[in-house]
């Protein structure tokens, strides 16, 4: 989707139905009034010859009809501003060089939140609207050309590059709009505030309350006779990258936890992430043990893992999944880290999952971008895709999570998962395994809880991995770890189209706001930092926005199979590139057939019929009561006919 679109509609608080991207790709863009007319009436395109599907000309906006609609309504050149959003600069006669349409001349506006470009020469007007948070890098391309044009390139975090050009400023003292842009796009580097801290939209629900660690553990049946909730990290003293609420074995007192923390990298001790409701097998996460070259051991750590194993009476084994390739795990010994030796940890079996580190992943995504943006080379598509290794990495991550889920579900065995620090690959693995194992995490709210828990509270370093507002685009800490996780979830939704309550648009929205800096959700690196920055007080949570219109994010085909474990097939045969995300800027790849739209219409029809049946029944009852001789059914004829539009 056009993240921009979603964002401005956030601000404008539109009440008419917003379509999820999958749907909206198909929606009419004719005019705003048309759209609202559709929205007002039940639309049964299924029964209609004219399925209400059309597109707009501007590919950048395809999928974002509201943006178009909005633009059509107010034919102004500047964007509709969000609360507390202010225009920083505006320039006319800027050329946007669209890779699909060609050069477009229009007005460019930069606010403290977004970049907005509008070309009125086309019908409908062409609009480009992106939050500055998406911009990873702004660079001047070449020198001034003979015609005196200056060209700028914007590299974006969401798999696209934008190119602009404008005439050389005659007044050399005046700053060009791109200098303003460079300032506003990287507020952190320039001592400015990230827009999320200013955005003042009020939503009916406080999204920061979606996740309550105590409540989530209670849902899992914790504490119980084997597991307790400890307050040892209440002030983040045991581990500053862990949440304050931790679940640990009952038999291990807090003092011992501290000694275990000394043996685990960054103090990230093994703690419970999930417990199987029947077998009591658990998913435990931690960081690597500080074994080092000398093969150091810790009696406390060994005892601790033994206790974890003992807490599950079903099995006399414990699986330790080290997410890394064994070579890398071994190399970590040089730095004091390493992995559990099977000698020291009796009854434990160590398995390496061969998932590569953040640098490899970053490189893979860079290659993927080369292959898919702006155009796809027609021949050798599959070979090109293979050469990026992106899906291979997705496969390895999914395969790792599958093995974890299998051990817990089929083997009734507890598992310990770690990588080096336990905040990247570990988060991917535990959260994916939990999606497989627990249907709650496949609901809209459950998934929010999962992200809050496994990713945010356990210290996935979003600020560093994404680089919010930071101009240092070459920072080696940046990596698409979270994107990979969402991609894996998407792969699962493809394989199990009825098992998830949320739709593709939900996942895309999360990714778009991962970068947008509109919500506070993905700010900072840890729970401690978020508390310190008072994020819940100063910013709005993404979940507040999402939960204010859940129907947009709902999969109409969701079937709630309770207690159904999903084992995805992790063969390349079933993995595919997420075209709807990675290639969404290419107008040719717009899904032709918005199937979800059809399902939604079907559901709407069912609801409509249900209503009519009920009305009729009431009618019949009333009539028989009054024994009127009116012709049956005639009053209902006045109800909206099924085909309301052409």
């Amino acid at each position: 989707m056009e993240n921009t679109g979603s964002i401005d509609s956030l601000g404008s608080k539109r009440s008419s139905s917003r379509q999820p991207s999958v749907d909206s790709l198909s929606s009419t863009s004719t005019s705003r009034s048309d759209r609202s007319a559709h929205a007002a009436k039940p639309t049964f395109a299924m029964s209609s010859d004219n399925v209400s599907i059309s597109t707009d000309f501007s590919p950048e906006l395809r999928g974002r009809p509201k943006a178009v609609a909005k633009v059509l309504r107010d034919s102004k050149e500047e964007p509709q501003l969000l609360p507390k959003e202010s225009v920083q600069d505006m320039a006319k006669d800027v050329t946007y060089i669209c890779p699909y349409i060609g050069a477009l001349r229009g007005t460019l506006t930069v606010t403290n939140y977004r970049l907005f470009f509008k070309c009125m020469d086309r019908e409908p007007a062409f609009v480009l609207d992106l939050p500055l948070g998406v911009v990873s890098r702004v660079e001047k391309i070449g020198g001034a050309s003979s015609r005196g044009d200056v060209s700028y390139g914007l590299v974006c975090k969401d798999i696209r590059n934008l190119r602009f050009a404008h005439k050389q400023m005659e007044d050399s003292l005046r700053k060009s709009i791109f200098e303003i842009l460079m300032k506003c796009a990287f507020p952190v580097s320039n001592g400015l505030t990230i827009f999320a801290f200013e955005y003042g939209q009020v939503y009916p629900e406080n999204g920061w309350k979606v996740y309550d660690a105590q409540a989530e553990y209670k849902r899992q049946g914790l504490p119980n006779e084997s597991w307790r909730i400890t307050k040892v990290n209440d002030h983040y003293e045991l581990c500053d990258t862990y949440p304050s609420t931790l679940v640990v074995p009952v038999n291990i007192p807090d003092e011992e936890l501290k000694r275990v923390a000394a043996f685990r990298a960054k103090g990230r001790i093994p703690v419970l992430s999930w417990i199987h409701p029947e077998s009591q097998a658990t998913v435990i996460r931690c960081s690597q043990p500080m074994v080092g070259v000398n093969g150091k051991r810790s009696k406390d750590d060994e005892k601790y893992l033994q206790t974890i194993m003992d807490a599950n009476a079903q099995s006399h084994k414990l699986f330790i999944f080290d997410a890394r390739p064994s070579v890398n795990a071994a190399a970590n010994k040089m730095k004091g880290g390493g992995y559990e030796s099977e000698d020291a940890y009796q009854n434990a079996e160590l398995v390496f999952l061969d998932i590569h580190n953040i640098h490899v992943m970053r490189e893979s995504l860079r290659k993927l971008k080369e292959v898919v943006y702006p155009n796809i080379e027609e021949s050798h598509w599959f070979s090109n895709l293979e050469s990026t290794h992106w899906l291979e990495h997705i496969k390895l991550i999914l395969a790792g999570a599958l093995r974890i889920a299998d051990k817990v579900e089929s083997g009734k065995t507890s598992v310990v998962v770690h990588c080096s620090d336990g905040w990247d690959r570990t988060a991917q693995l535990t959260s994916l395994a939990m999606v497989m194992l627990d249907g709650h995490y496949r609901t809209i709210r459950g998934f929010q809880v999962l992200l809050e828990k496994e990713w945010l509270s356990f210290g996935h370093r979003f600020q560093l991995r994404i680089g919010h507002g930071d101009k240092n685009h070459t920072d080696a800490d940046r990596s698409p770890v979270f994107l990979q996780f969402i991609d894996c979830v998407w792969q699962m939704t493809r394989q199990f189209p009825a098992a998830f309550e949320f739709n593709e648009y939900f996942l895309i929205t999360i990714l778009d706001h991962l970068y947008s800096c509109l919500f506070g959700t993905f700010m900072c690196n840890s729970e401690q930092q978020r508390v310190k920055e008072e994020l819940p007080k100063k910013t709005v949570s993404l979940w507040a926005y999402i939960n204010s219109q859940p129907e947009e994010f709902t999969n109409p085909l969701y079937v709630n199979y309770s207690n159904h474990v999903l084992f995805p097939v992790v063969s390349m045969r079933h993995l595919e590139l997420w075209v709807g995300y990675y290639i969404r800027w290419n107008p040719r790849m717009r899904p032709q057939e918005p199937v979800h739209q059809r399902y939604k219409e079907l559901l709407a029809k069912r609801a409509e019929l249900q209503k009519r049946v009920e009305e009729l029944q009431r009618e019949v009852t009333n009539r028989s009561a009054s024994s009127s001789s009116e012709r049956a059914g005639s009053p209902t004829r006045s109800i909206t006919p099924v085909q309301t539009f052409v």
Partner: protein
Amino acid sequence: MLSSLGSAGGKSAKPSFVSYVTPEEIKSEKEPSRKEKHPDLLPGEVVFCSASTVLKYTQDDLSQRGVFGVLLCTNFRVSFVSDEAPTEEMVRTLFKNKLYGENDIPLSCVDNIYGDKRKLITGGLVKNKYPSKMIIHCKDLRVFQFSLSFSKEEDAKKIFQGIVHHCLEPKSLRCLFAFSYCENTSYPGSYSYCREHLRKKQTVMFDSVEDWTQDMKRTKGNCRVVSENSNFELSPKLPQYFIVPKNVSDEDLTKYQGKGLPMWCWSHHSGCALFKTASIPLVQEDNVCCRMLTAVAHNHLYSVKTEDLSDTLPTVQDILLSYNRFKQFFLIDNTTEFWMSDMKWFSSLDNCGWLDIIRQCLQKAVEVVESLEKENTNVLIMEEGGSDLCCVVSSLVQLMLDPYYRTLLGFQSLVQKEWVAGGHAFLDRSNHLHLKDKVESQSPVFLLFLECVWQLQQQHGPAFQFSETYLTVLSDSIHVPVFTTFLFNNDGHRDSLLRAESPHTQRSPLNCPTVWDWSVQFDCKAQDLFTNPLYTEKPKQDTSVRKSYRPRHLRQLSLPSSAFKTPPKKGFFKDEADNLKKILGVKRLSRWMLSPSSDSPQTSSSVREFYEAWQTKPLDYHGLLLPCLDGPSIRVWMQRYLRWIHDVQILGGGPVAMLSKVSEILGEVQELQRQLDRHGCTLTSNHKGARPRAKTAAAVIAARSSVRLSSSFPFVTSRNWSFKPAIPTSLLQSLMVTGMAGNLADREDDGGPESLV
């Protein structure tokens, strides 16, 4: 295909299916009952030979486990009858084919047979030896592995030689099972019997003047129906009936015996039409060519474009080679091999070129559509023979342009028109007879067409009344030698053979079913899976008379001229201006609507523009459909190719999960509608037509918990599958990443520059 696929053996908790006893024990045990073991034979089916205590391996691994039973070879199939009593569930198999079961391989469905050490067995080489292990690859992509080493030597030799003989060696057409089957069944759906019925609500067979006239009228064509060949007087190779441009004279018909005749395929509402022809050898006098072109041009606005498909599309040999490489990815003997090949899956796909051939065919069809739709030019496609790629392209063009062909009956009629009546040499292309001189002509051209249809269907699901399952079943049926549809090379061939084979008088030819009589293979319940629950019929006023449809059609299909103002048509299409100049003289040329010729590289960009312009219009499922041809859009037909491979079955997922939910909702909608009707409130709904089936389909699926269904539905039941996931083996064997970015792989996650080695 229950047990053949159930790789259950290794994993499931059903030990009863796996035989651990030694063969000696088995022999003594099973010997007495041996005589009774054979499948329910079809009428006219005769057992040639059999062997007992044959071990059928379970597919999943190298564990060498399996089931013992009797292996038979009949004049119809190779059949394995398990010694195990059939389980109850097996009897209730939902999608049971009435002609052959999961352990049966129709003789013409056998693709390749391998012996020990995976040595390819070819006919004729078999003397007295027989392999201990025999692997049979089927054309429907099943793989069977049998061990003969526990059987009596004599039996084993006999069965092996029998199978090889009947599956691989040349035979006469009369030996095909269809003939003995039809002689022995009083098949009711035959020609004369339900002629009337066929007229009304069945597939149009295009075997009469009326059928052709009707179809031409339907599309408002203005051509000439030729019935002079009804007894194959003009040429046995020409269809019995066909349509040519109005300007073709009687003299033209007889003089050239139909060589180079432009055959009408379909008329566009604008008046222009699509024709196909067998290309004429250049040595022939130019005259024919010109006369025919003129005739085509006269059809509408004096414009014509020709396209020689032999020049621009792969040859039938290319198609065969590519498909042979492609199918190997799915003929999996064991799971280790499968996972080994997984990492290189994408590049293998590219390398075999199959998807690219599909793309080329679709692209060619789009080019033709563009000429018809945008430029309203007559199009004449040609190739040597005129009955392979011409059929592919012309059928695809019609599917894209004419919603009628996207209905089930419409599609079947299209296949009858373009392929059966159109003279596609099904017999030679499938080489059912294993004739040595026909090896060259073997090629899966019809399958290629179905692949293209599947791509269209994937991209525009609700536009098609038939389902993916229907296409898969149709692709399997090519190899069931019972249906007249796929047994002959052309009308004349069929006519002469059926007459010759008739047991009765010359008057009534042998009655054989066509593949369209689906009740021969499936009962009604199973046939419900052939329809797409999301399909909606066109509103009533359109279906009744075409007249009322036309203005709508025009409005919806024609693209705004503004979108096309830009460059004039450039294309591959050989411009006939020069030729025609010669023929027609300058005077007429002024009336031609031909644009100046240009070079080919532009074509794809023109097609792109055409696609993009179409894409920006509202999508109308009953209007023009174009496929997206970009890399990610052309995909592998998962249901057909992956259905037998256990390790890639998504248990509780796959398209069926969606289908069952949709069917459930449709069922509810239908029920509500019924309630409303009962209350006397008639709905002016167009859904009615489409609904009735939905309920039954819902019932079919709902009967089984969809949690238990897998992505291979309905072809494999997951009865004996374990819920254990398939864990890929040899995950990182390549460790390709280190190769490509060694230093990155060794670095620490911290992002620090310090790299470890």
